[in-house]
Structure formats: C-alpha cells, structure tokens
C-alpha cells in the first residue's frame, strides 16, 4: 500500500542525505520526496510517499525516528489529510487539437502558462490521481516534457474521528 509520511526534521545541512541514505540502505522504496521550510525556520517538513506493507511501514517509521535529526514522524495515511502535487506538462499541439486540449485543461482547472506554435505548457495541481488522470488524457496528443514535484501533504484540522493516541503518531525514540 502507498503511504504518505510527513517527517519534521531539523533544518540543517546533511539531513536530506541522512533520510535518503536510510531509505536506500534499508531497501525502502521512495516514490516521491519533497522538502521545504515550515512556519518555524529551524524545522523542515519532508513529505515522503513510500509503498510497502504494514511491517515495512512500521520499520520506516521506527528507523526514521531513530535518526537524531528527526523530530516527528506522522503517517498521514492514517489520518484525514490534504495531499497536493504540482506538475508542469509540455503538450504538443496543432491546429486541430488546440481547443480540445484547452477544454481538458479547463476541466482539470489547470492553467496554460506558456504557449509556443507547437506546444502548451500546462500547470496543474491536485492529488496524484488527478495528475495521473490528466496525463493519461493528454498523452495521446504527445507529451514533450514533464516535471512533477511529488506530493506535499498536511493533516486536516478537523478529523472526523480523532485517531486514537499512539495510533497514528509513532512515538519517538
């Protein structure tokens, strides 16, 4: 199963290397990883999408918690959370398909941010499924280039059912 994990870490040089090194040395699969500063400049938030069964995920959480620079690990998948990704997609266009592509972009509430005689560059945000669906729809026209940020996520302020203590957040160690 795919999990979105939010990792709060000390905002220091070398921390990203520690985390990515941990994933590679322990054989965990990263699907995507994003890092950025939080409201507290001394803390960065990493959003890591990782796939694996429960045993693997338990190890991912525990091993992350063992790193001295890791402050908190939250498995978002066990809560309600907002999940967004941004993609820039350069689609080939011609006289006959321009309007069709514009329509698809509109439906997905994307934006055309650059135009050339032969291409549109589309900016699209949403969860990964939405972006995948968009890519699937425009790929018959020809995708010349594409970049995705990987997911970022935050938990929702109102959780319908509060997760039980010790259930969603792994204790530090």
């Amino acid at each position, binding site marked *: 199963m795919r999990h979105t994990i939010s990792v709060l870490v000390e905002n220091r040089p070398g921390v990203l290397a520690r985390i990515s090194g941990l994933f590679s040395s322990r054989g965990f699969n990263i699907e995507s990883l994003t890092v950025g500063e939080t409201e507290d400049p001394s803390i960065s938030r990493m959003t890591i999408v990782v796939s694996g069964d429960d045993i693997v995920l338990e190890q991912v959480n*525990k091993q992350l918690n063992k790193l001295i620079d890791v402050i908190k690990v939250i498995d978002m998948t066990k809560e309600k959370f907002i999940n967004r990704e941004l993609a820039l997609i350069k689609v080939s266009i011609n006289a006959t398909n321009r309007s069709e592509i514009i329509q698809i972009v509109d439906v997905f509430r994307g934006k055309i941010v650059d135009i050339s005689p032969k291409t549109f560059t589309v900016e699209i945000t949403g969860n990964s499924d939405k972006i995948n669906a968009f890519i699937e729809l425009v790929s018959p026209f020809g995708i010349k280039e594409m970049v995705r940020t990987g997911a970022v996520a935050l938990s929702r302020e109102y959780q319908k059912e509060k997760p039980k203590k010790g259930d969603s957040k792994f204790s530090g160690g």
Partner: protein
Amino acid sequence: MKKKGAEILVECLRREGVEIMFGIPGGVVLPIFDALYDSPIKFILTRHEQGAAHMADGFARATGKVGVCLATSGPGATNLITGIATSYMDSIPIVAITGQVATTLIGNDAFQEADTTGITRPITKHNYLVKSVKDLPRIVREAFYIASTGRPGPVLIDIPVDISKGESEFNYPETVNIRSYKPTYKGHPVQIKKAAEEIRRCKKPFIYAGGGVIISNASKELKVFAEKINAPVGLTLLGLGGFPGTHPQFVGMIGMHGTRVANYAICEADLIIAIGARFDDRVTGKLDKFATSSKIIHIDIDPASISKNVPVDIPIVGDAKNILTELNKEITPKKNPDWWRQIKEWQSKYPLSYSRNGKLKPQFVIEEIYNITKGNAIITTEVGQNQMWTAQFYKFDYPRTFLSSGGLGTMGYGFPAAIGAQFGKPDKIVFDIAGDGSIQMNIQELITAVEHKLPVKVAILNNGYLGMVRQWQQLFYNKRYSYSDISKQPDFVKLAEAYGAVGIRVTKEEEVRPALEKSLKVSDKPTIIDFQIEREENVFPIVPAGAPITEAIDYKDIELA
C-alpha cells in the same frame, strides 16, 4: 577569555571524564595534538587507526565508559571505518574524532580529504561536521550524550583544521537538550503487567537474552527474574556473561553454533522472553520455522528492534534494568517441572562435546584457559572458529568479560580490543583468543602493547587455515579449499620476540598448562602462545545457513557419515 578550538575540544573531553584516548596524529589534527601535549588525558599512540578504533571499543565494552579515538583526515578517517562499523553493529558507545581539511577547502579534493561524515553516515548513530568554533562545546557534549544513552553507538565529530586553530569564547553547556532525541527508559506499566500475566500463565518459558542486558548493567536483575520463574536461559553471542555460564538454568548460546538444548528449547517454548536481543539471523535460522507456537515478550530500548524480524506479542520499550526491576515486582514464582524434565533430557542427550583423540584440540585449550583463570579473565576473540569455540567452551560468569565482534564479525578486532580492555582494567587478566588468520590483521598493535608494558595474552589457535571458511568449504563446497589455506605463515614465536614480547609454542596437550602458567607469570609485556591445533577441527554443532535452528549437524554426524 578566548580559547583555540583545539583547546576547547581537549577541555570538553576532560570535562566528559575522558582519561584515555587512542589514535595517530596527522596533518590536520596537529593543532589538537598540540593541545593534548599539555593535557592530563593519556593518549595511546597506536600503529594503525583501525587499532585505535577497536581499542576504544574494547575499552568501552570492558568498562562501560565511552571509548574515544582520534585520527587525521582522509586515510586516517577511512582507517577508522571498520572499527566504527564494529561498534555500530554491537551498540558500543565510542566517540571518534577526525580531522578535516579547512572549511574553505572542503569539496576541492584537497590533500588527504575524504567526505568523512558522508562515509560514516550509515555506520554511526550520529555524526557532526563542525562548522564554527563556538559550536564545538555543544557538539562534544551532545556526541558523548548520544553515544552513551538510549541504544548506545558510535558518534563521529569531524573537525576542520581551521576550526581547531580558530578562537572563540569558551562556554561549556552544563546540560544537553536535543528536542528530537529522548530515549525511553521506563517500560510502560500496562505492558509490564501484561507480560507478568503471560508469564504466570505459561508452562514452558524461555529467556533469550542478549547484549542489551550487559549494556544496561541488568545482569543481577536478570538473575533474580530467571530464578523466580525458573526458566531456562539462552544467551546470544553478545549476551555471554550477562547470565552466569555456570548457573544450572543456563542452557547455552542460541543459534547457528548454539547448543542443541538452547535451540530446541527456544523453539518448543510456549513463551519467549527476549531481553536486549534483536532476533538476528544467526540466532533465528530459517525464520518461518523459528518459535512458531510461542508467544513473545520483547524488552528492548530500541523500538526499531521490536517486530523487525519476528512478530512480537508484548513489546516493552525501555531500559532492561528498569523494566526487569519492575517486572520482578509483578511476577510470582514458578517451577515448570515438566518443562525441566524435557530440558534435562535434551541436556543429557546432546551435551556440548568434542572428540578427544590425543591431538591438540582448540576446545581443550579454551577449557584450560578457563580453568587456569577460574573464569575471572576478560576474554576477547577474533572472528571465526576461535570465536565460536570460545563462546561454547569458556564459561562466562560475569558481564563485560567477553568482548567479541558479533554483528559485523570483524577479524582483527580481538587483539586491539584486548589492549583497550587492559588499559581500562589494568588489574584483570586479559586474553585474546585468536586464529592465525585474524591475528595477522592487526598484529602491528603488538608494539603498542609492548610500549605500554601490557601483559595481554594472545592464544593463537593456529591451524594454518582461515578455519571457518575452510569448515564451510568442507561441509558445503565438497572440500574444495579455495584460498583458505594460510599455512605459509610467520614464526609467531620469533615474531613475538622480534617485537619484544614473549613467544611460546605449544604442540601437545600436556604443554598447554605449563605454557599458560608461564604466560600468567609475565606481567610487563604481552605473551603470544602459538597453539598448533589439529588442522581440520570443526565447530559443532552447526546449523547450515538458511536451515531451521533445530536442524544442527554435530561432529558425530560427520564421523558416522
């Protein structure tokens, strides 16, 4: 008043209680060595940085204090790597300090530059590259705190030369506060109650204890616990000494070269109480045949060790000593008579033994070392047959008396570790039980022992082979002894003499005792005893790699075949 970085470092080390450190100087650590010149800290100049790291490790294992080693940048640092990885795998608290090229040169492929923090990231509990002199006191403080608390481990501090030379006001932080590092020491009371309940209910309990018992100084509490519930106790390699080897409840080491009794018992038990052990593959053998019908209570300070290899029913995260103390209050005495009837039967059927055929047997040598030291010595080992025979035939009654590289399996560990242990415990008899292969991997430290008049004893079980490799080739590769014959070797007696140590050669059983007696009389230099043992003696029992631990091969099986 402003101080130089190097002076700040040495002052911080002194305040951490460091009395001794091991290492070798070099270009970018010259400022640190200049500061050490006037310091009360005793510095042991080794002949190779690997020796320094293992000495720090041996010192730490024998004393329970943090071991410290120091090396220069580049090759000095990379030479420490094997030692650091050894400590990491066995959770040994050491602080390794390395020099680094000046901050302005980092990344320029400067002379003797290596990315030390990058290289050591996966083999340290934590590491630091110091970027400012004023951070140095905090970093040293944190390094010792992290190394010695929670699940201990090595911490490395990489110090660029301009930091050592640079100046700053010296402010020593009295306390350490790392917001992201708060190890759990107290076990959860609900989990402890649950464990006690399970112990009350079980009929065939088995205690599986490891190095964590020794690290947390929980041997006394373990003994009380084991005696109260009258459970058989099996130990891991690193757990040896954590429970008395002569105790009637001790059934031996578990795993690949464990006793059959211990391996049968852990698989037949209805409750396994794992304490400070991590279900390593050398212990469990084939996982889906390991302890299939038992419940498992697992006490460990590292949450990541719990349910990593084997699913656990009742995890208790915390310090073994604390938890056992609490658990001992909750449990009621039990006898388990039927269980003991079964265990006694196994014990009489499958004792640890070897064939006495008049030739010089390594097991006999180890038994004699045990007899002559009355089990009171500190024993280090190298890795391979010498290590397993020692684990089987020397009875360790006390914690911190068996020092061996378990996790990483580092040949060349035992001798420098013995030197480190002897520095930490000057009044103890220290033996390194070695093989002729392993001893040659750090033999250069012989001169370090001679220089400091250390009466370390090295018993080389000399069979002219990389013995464990040869044993596997014999058993699993049709006796094709591919590059495991090392019978072309130095004369170890002359070698000892060349270094200024005592050398003794033993070729017969009756010479063993006199040689050991002679070595014990030498008090101001090391002794090397070259025991020329039967060449193709094997370690038995042996569970083939990947087999269930109940399916061991014994020497009798081979002789009959």
